């Protein structure tokens, strides 16, 4: 079913909207959750919560791109779950997010008063300055949390190429954040 029709079902408060969402995007959302959590049960719960989140937020929201809308919900729920698990010391897995520590350092942190929206705009501007391939690899890794192997397959790159590209992107992001005055010492 087309996304437009699924969204119409949400607006009509037709519960089959969830069924169609599950059919079309269930596996896709699960993949995002699993890439973050590395746990089947937690991932299933996050995906189910995603459907609930979509049900509760559409309307009033009108997704621009339904797949991305769902991905954002899944990602945020999964990250929240990951943070809870980490706080309870139930998470021993490395995630792609750990790599983003490269953007900070012992003496450099993001100012407390920087709002998420402002930081988003800065990172958006940064990504727009990158080449399409660098930007896409960065997003696949740190938004979708794809594994290196998946990114290699997607872009037909060697593993070392992907890793090196990500490393350089992180380094450049750090420089950019410093330049923008977002990092403090």
């Amino acid at each position, binding site marked *: 079913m087309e996304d437009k029709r699924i969204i119409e079902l949400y607006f009509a408060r037709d519960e089959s909207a969830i069924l169609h969402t599950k059919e079309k995007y269930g596996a896709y959302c699960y993949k995002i959750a699993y890439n973050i959590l590395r746990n089947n049960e937690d991932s299933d719960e996050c995906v189910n919560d995603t459907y609930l989140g979509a049900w509760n937020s559409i309307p009033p929201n009108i997704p621009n791109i339904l797949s991305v809308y769902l991905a954002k919900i899944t990602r945020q729920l999964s990250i929240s779950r990951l943070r809870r698990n980490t706080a309870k010391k139930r998470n021993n897995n490395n995630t792609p997010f750990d790599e983003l520590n490269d953007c900070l350092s012992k003496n450099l942190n993001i100012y407390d008063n920087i709002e998420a929206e402002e930081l988003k705009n800065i990172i958006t501007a940064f990504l727009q300055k990158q080449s399409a391939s660098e930007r896409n690899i960065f997003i696949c890794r740190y938004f979708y949390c794809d594994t290196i192997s998946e990114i290699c397959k997607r872009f037909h790159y060697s593993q070392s190429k992907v890793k090196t*590209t990500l490393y350089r992107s992180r380094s450049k992001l750090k420089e950019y954040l410093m330049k923008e005055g977002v990092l403090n010492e």
Partner: protein
Amino acid sequence: MSNEKIIDAIGMLDDTMIYEAKFGKVKVLPHITKVIAAALIIMIISVAVIGGFNMLGHMKTDGDYTNTKYSFRNEKLMKICNINITYESNEPTPDLKLTMQYIGSEIFGVEYSDAEKVVFTSRTGIFVYNYKSDNIVHTFDLEKVGAPGFNQGDDSYSSLQVDKSGRYAILKSTDNSGDKYHYINLLNGETKDIAENDIPEDMESFETQEMTYYPESDSDDSFNYYSPKAHTSSYMANYHNCDFFMRIEPDNKGKLLVGNMELLIIKPDGSFTTQRVFADMFPKFGK
């Protein structure tokens, strides 16, 4: 997580940007754009008939890539090559930057390039392409000297290092019988086996070349092995704006779209050409 703000901010990025990273360009077009697109498609189809004949008739296709509005024939070639070449649209065209998504599993890497030539490798072959003659002037088959393929495995592999002047290269092959070295003259194509002691002193050691530019930490346990080769190609791909190449992809049945393996070679001035190479150097995609 000390990087929580960054993680959250990435989660808020623009929908289109996120979508395109995973699925390519957004296909949804505004109504007026659809009308324009339809007109363009009709025009492109018309040109395609002529362009298609042109390409079939001339396996070797040259094109000027320095215009931001490149011709359909160029675009067609891009499509056949299954590559993406991006350019900074804000850059003045003479300073066009080409970013090649160039490395396939079979073409292994660009090892060296200067104003005259490019040295690049497949899994089992080494090629020297000369801009002036617009030809691959030398090939070197690893299997003929009993050298394992590049990136073959942790215990058996080959690595290549080109000297800074581009005059020669040393192929180091490693297997359970130990290390062997081959001297390759890139100017005349001559090769000879040499002992480790015979490696010219001005050549950097293979050991110092390894790992130089790799990330310090790596969370993905499945990729802890890096070869000097992969290092070199990534380095070249990232630090040179142009003069890289791409193989033409086979179709989904393994048949090459234009009959044989061809490379797209981007020249320093932004123009490009295709170049036939030898299919038997690429076992997986051979005839």
